[in-house]
């Protein structure tokens, strides 16, 4: 039973994540007085990218070739450490929030390396900016979990969420402050305004886009998809911890 839930968890997240990105874009379009593309547009984009030929820079090394797979692979295993679908598998099966944060850091590490890999002027600056922000958000993210960990006496996200939902109303004050921190970290980690703009290609403002500028075809699709996964993962995590 529990293995079935784990597999369901692992499939559900990547299937829903493009939809989530589509909805966010639609909302953004409404707020800017545009009609915007349909909410299923990200699926079409992925489909299109997977069926395109690839152009890869001659200077690229295996880091550039491997990173998209690594990124996508890690992004779908992120939910293993968090409660989803009300599942309670064995607590000691995976790990706690620190491993989750460090898995995110691993993703950042490799995408920054692949940004440097092709040796374009954009990629390097993208990596530099990304690592600057990542170095500072890692701490923010960890410290936004910490108050809840202290209140619930555990660093295991599954236990944290279950214990937090049973707490009396008073104990929610630290949650509010922690949520503010988490929200800032979320914006930075998923590359949203004001840290980064996912839809820009202006060299002065792009961070994430600058690093993946040289990607095309299926590898670009994987990176986009991995980012969508990361985005929905953060939303689920936030909901679980702060609005139990």
């Amino acid at each position: 039973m529990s293995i079935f839930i784990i597999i369901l968890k692992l499939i559900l997240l990547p299937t829903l994540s493009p939809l989530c990105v589509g909805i966010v874009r639609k909302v953004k379009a409404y707020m800017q007085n545009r009609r915007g593309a349909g909410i299923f547009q990200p699926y079409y984009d992925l489909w299109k990218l997977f069926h395109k030929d690839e152009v890869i820079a001659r200077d690229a090394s295996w880091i550039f070739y491997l990173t998209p797979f690594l990124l996508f692979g890690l992004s779908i295993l992120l939910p293993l450490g968090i409660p989803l679908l009300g599942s309670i598998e064995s607590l000691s099966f995976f790990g706690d929030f620190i491993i989750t944060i460090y898995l995110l850091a691993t993703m950042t590490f490799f995408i920054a390396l692949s940004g440097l890999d092709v040796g374009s002027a954009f990629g390097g600056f993208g990596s530099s900016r990304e690592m600057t922000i990542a170095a500072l958000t890692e701490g923010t993210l960890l410290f936004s979990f910490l108050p809840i960990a202290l209140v619930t006496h555990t660093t295991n996200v599954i236990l944290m969420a279950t214990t937090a939902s049973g707490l009396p109303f008073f104990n929610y004050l630290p949650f509010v402050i922690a949520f503010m921190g988490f929200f800032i970290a979320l914006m930075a980690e998923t590359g949203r305004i004001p840290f980064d703009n996912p839809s820009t290609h202006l060299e002065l403002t792009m961070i994430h886009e600058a690093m993946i500028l040289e990607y095309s075809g299926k590898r670009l699709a994987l990176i986009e998809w991995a980012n969508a996964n990361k985005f929905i993962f953060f939303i689920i995590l936030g909901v679980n911890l702060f609005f139990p």
Partner: protein
Amino acid sequence: MQNLFFTSLLVLTGGSIISLIVQRDTKLSYVSSVFSMFGSLLALIFSIGALITQSTLTTTLPTSFPMFNISLHIDPLAAFFILIVSLIALPASLYGIVYMKQYAIEYNLGVFGFFYNIFLISLLLVITAHNALYFLFVWEIMSLSSLFLVIFENKKLQIIKSGFIYFIMTHAATAFILLSFLLLFQFTGSFDFETIKQHFASIPFVIQTIIFLCMIIGFGTKAGIVPFHIWLPWAHSAAPSHVSSLMSGVMIKIGIFMLFKMFLDILPQTPLWLGYVVLIIGAVSSILGVLYALSEHDIKRLLAYHSIENIGIILLGLGSGLIFIALKQPSLAMLAITAGLFHTLNHAVFKSLLFLGAGSVISQTHTRNIEEYGGLIKLMPYTAIFFLVGAVAISGLPPFNGFVSEWLTFQSLFSGIATSSILIKSIFIFGAACLTFTGGLAAACFVKAFGITFLARSRSIESEKATEVSPLLLISMGTLAVLCLTLGVFSFFVITNIQLIVKSLSLFASKTSSLSSTGISLQVNQNVAHLNMPVIFLVMAVFIALSFGLVYIVSRKQKVVLRTVWDCGFNALSPKMEITATGFSRTLILIFRGIFQPSKQHEIEYVDADIRYFSKSKTVTLGIVNIYEAYLYYPLHNGLSIISKQIRKIQSGNVNQYLLYIFILLLGLLIFARY
């Protein structure tokens, strides 16, 4: 069992003597390295045996000097550090066989082999020494033999300067250690650690405080804590790379070992404030170490600064352990000390791997400046993989070993935050904050170090000509890289054994640790936290492979075309347009400008000084102020010179005046003797 250890010492001694005998024949210079390999292999087997049997060996050889006994004491803690020494010495010596050949024409390899073996012997002896005088004797041999290894390339002025700084700092450290031992002698009447251990409680509180502080400064200088760290970047960058890997991986750990041994075994029941001091030193060292590493673009200095950072992380473990001991929470203390010991082992492995990798790169490119590397991943693919493993491990990313020990350190700091006292809480929060930022900044720094060195295109002619290094070098790096992964994935096994070492300390006899491993997963304090490294490694590998396989099935028909990088429609991109190491870290340096005090100088030369439109040349110098040298060491140095100048006035060269001094002294002594 014991004989194995002595055989290993004998083999190393033999190596050092033979190295001197064959010094005229450069073809035979590998012989001494073979001896050191064999010696460290024996020591490795011995230490594993001692750890398995959990036995304590004690031998005392009396000498004709009073108070000076050659007394050896190998408890599980010492055996663990012998394990670390020999584990690193083995691949480092293998590396040395080939690596030293590049010096054969210019320098005397026989002398190098001599000091190298002596250095290994002294490392083993320092760990086992159980008498303060004998300890100081072998400690000094260790300092001096490593000094001669540092100044091996003695035809370069820079290297002599590095050696000089190392010499001064290491002897200042010895002075503090000597002072603490003399105080211990005065109040316990013995130089024997065993006697000191029994009588320590009778020493007055003030003297105890002075002893503790002297030990922190003395052993801390050797370990490289801030602000006594200034010798590390000099000494580690000057020595040949496998010596750097031994110094950074092992020798600075001897300082750590002595802190562990003194505070947990010889002088137990340390006061609470000592824990605070160690923890704060650890936190400050870790964050400042990594910040300075970021600003560095000499690859070996960068790695040396990372050693300071990691020493900080180890001290975070030890510091929280000492606080828990003082708070009478031994089970949490065991967790924290396990974290510190495990990080000691891990840092030794990945730091020596990185130094060996850096050495391979330097041997090919003949420069330590990472701005002149680039594109080496295609020319030196295996070195690149091994360096990447080291970089990922030191950044504390799963599934490698650095992550596990940082996780343990986090857990012990979190347990400290959960205590009730506000003061203790805030100190632990400070430690945890420093550790998180350290993790993030270390990752940023190694993206820089690996990216600028190995990725993109070559930035100099030297690095275009680089080729892969010889298989022996690759084997020694590969061994360490595999160790990084195994220590991470099978951390549950390693930690179970480190727990046994911690348990063997009399402080923790018959106490249970809050860290336990159930099956293959680690567990802190009944459900507080879990970590299942084998599963994490497995799912990471499976998912990456899975995404690879699925994508291959979906889009295998699509073509992959190789083209040059998009150059915005101009001419082809040159390596000058790539980001540099300085540019990469500039943003972070500006964010922390309060600490770095970055400086920027413009120098523009114009074609015509009156019409300032066309410039002939522009130079921008970016630099940072070395605040320790500027605010601590220069004032100290200036103060000393002023005092020396004043004292010199006494010495006038007039014989009559000297006679007067003798008379005054005599008078003074007579008066002193009368009362």
